């Protein structure tokens, strides 16, 4: 049984006087124990809203959440706020993109870490401080005793993200949700943080749900990858399978459009045309159709279903997937 099983999660925003907009439109995926699962997509694909919904961090007013998210035998979406608060930090923890705004600016780092230890692990006084110092050291913050007394603004971006990771892993959570944890960081610092996350997952057996727009990050870290587009998962596969055989035209196009540091130079890139604004409602057909080179009339009649056109476990939501036998060109008239 998977550790987390998200089933047809939908999130609709619709405040007063506003037309409701669906940010997440039936997303299903699973995370196994100790597995690293990636949710990849561009802005507006619903990846961050998914993570916030799982953590119960969406505002209660004006938001409708549907579907199920069974974590360790219990539905996170049906859980009461108090139970969810206990769950967060102990069994479930989250790391955000902007470490500065997720730390309380007027409280020293040490107090913020020991608070979690007191609340969820019942450690007190010197024992809590000792454990906090150990945690900071664990995530590679030099001179942890001194750092415990410092305030968030005294730390650099990379150090802040480490402190946040230390807080997240303080109670040995079973699942860690990381929402673009390295996007705000420089690439050498990103490498440090990714290496640290990888090491934590290996050593502690924590499952990691990695939310990112960076396919490079996914390629180095995730076991299983879900590609999201306009609120739906369009392709799900193991890491090697996905990067070797991207089958949905979106994933295929995305991988083809990225300049690679190790590829020969001098050839123009193959961009995907249009923008995320050029979409149609999933109910009418494939949201990606307006930007797709392969779309046909079938793409414009009803939601395409997930199929496994290539190998088992490699699910693709497309009527005309990119397959080796079907050459990549438009279907003739």
């Amino acid at each position, binding site marked *: 049984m998977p550790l987390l099983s998200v089933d047809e999660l939908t999130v609709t925003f619709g405040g007063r*006087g506003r037309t409701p907009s669906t940010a997440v439109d039936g997303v299903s995926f699973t995370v196994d124990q100790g597995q690293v699962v990636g949710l990849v997509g561009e802005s507006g694909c619903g990846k961050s809203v998914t993570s916030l919904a799982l953590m119960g961090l969406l505002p209660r007013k004006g938001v409708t959440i549907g579907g199920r998210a069974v974590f360790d035998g219990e539905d996170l979406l049906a859980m009461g706020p108090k139970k969810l608060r206990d769950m967060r930090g102990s069994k479930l923890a989250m790391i955000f993109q902007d470490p500065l705004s997720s730390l309380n600016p007027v409280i020293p780092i040490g107090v913020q870490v020991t608070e979690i230890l007191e609340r969820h692990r019942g450690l007190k006084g010197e024992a809590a401080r000792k454990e906090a110092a150990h945690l900071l050291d664990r995530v590679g913050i030099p001179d942890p005793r001194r750092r415990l007394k410092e305030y968030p603004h005294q730390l650099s971006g990379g150090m802040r993200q480490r402190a946040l990771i230390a807080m997240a892993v303080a109670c040995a959570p079973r699942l860690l949700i990381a929402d673009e944890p390295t996007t705000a960081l420089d690439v050498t610092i990103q490498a440090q943080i990714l290496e640290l996350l990888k090491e934590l997952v290996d050593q502690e057996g924590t499952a990691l749900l990695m939310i990112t727009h960076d396919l490079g990050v996914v390629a180095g870290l995730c076991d299983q990858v879900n590609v999201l587009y306009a609120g739906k998962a369009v392709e799900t596969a193991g890491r090697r399978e996905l990067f070797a055989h991207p089958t949905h035209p979106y994933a295929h196009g995305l991988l083809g459009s990225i300049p690679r540091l190790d590829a020969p130079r001098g050839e123009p890139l193959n961009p995907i045309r249009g923008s995320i*604004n*050029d*979409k*149609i*409602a999933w109910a*009418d*057909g494939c949201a990606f*159709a*307006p930007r797709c080179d392969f*779309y*046909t*009339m079938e*793409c*414009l009649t009803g939601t395409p279903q997930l199929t496994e056109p290539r190998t088992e476990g490699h699910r693709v939501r497309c009527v005309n997937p990119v397959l080796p036998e079907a050459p990549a060109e438009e279907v003739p*008239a």
Partner: protein
Amino acid sequence: MSTKTDKIDRLAELTQANETTTGASLWREAFRRLKNSKMAVIGAAVIALFVVVAIVGPWLAPHTPTAQTWRGEVFANQGKFVGARGENWFGLDHLGRDMFSRMLVGARQTLLVGVVSMLIGLVVGALIGMLSGAAATLGGRTGRRVDTVVMRFIDILLSLPSLLLAVSIAAVMGQSLTTVMIAVGVVQIPVFARLLRGSMLSQGGSDYVLAAKALGVRRKRIVLTQILPNSLSPVIVQATLSLATAIIEAAALSYLGLGNPDPAVPEWGVMLAQAQRFFDNAPMMAVYPAVGIIVTALGFTLLGEAMREALDPKLRG
């Protein structure tokens, strides 16, 4: 017909729903949001009513507001007053004048005080703020010094208690409606100056100003076409809100006896001030002008708050 054109047609049809409106400026969008705001509509309705009364009030008034027609029925020193009745809807004041007529005629003075003093504050304050802001953002080292000096002066103005400042001005200029307007207006100057300067300073650091500099646009033009239009929103909101404060402050000054001493021109603030002496026996004499001032001020505040929301760039889109 080929399937190719069919599918293109079908796609066009499905994407049409997403077409956004075109060519709407931010001002127009803000106005559209304003129209949809209940707060703005109520505020605007109150203000409209007030303005109409202020304009046509003197013609609507059933009696002459200054004529002591019923002086034989009111004996203020004996505590004998006349309340609301068929002939005098709001009753009579301490000199036997019709309160309803006085309220109608007084609205004009109140509006005049509010608008003129707000304009004094707005025009002078915005001018100082604009010069200071322009000097600080694009004037180089000299500009920054000019700005520092001007702003310290404004700080001094701001640190004086506004009522004290108004009283001092009134003391110098004597007791008149003009005094009230100038006193209330001067108090508003530092508010507008600081607001516009601050807004210009934050806009001055934005990327599009840098982009205009990179284009080679002249400094004067950058201030006028780039920085200023984007800095005006908070000033517009403040102008609306300060109409409310101006009316209340003018009433306060009148209440303190610094207002127009001319009994021929009724004004709500003066009326309120006069009514206090008879509050025990004729509370309604104070209630009418007080409610008038409060409701009008509320109207301006509601509109101002609604405008703040409508003009907020964070709600754009």
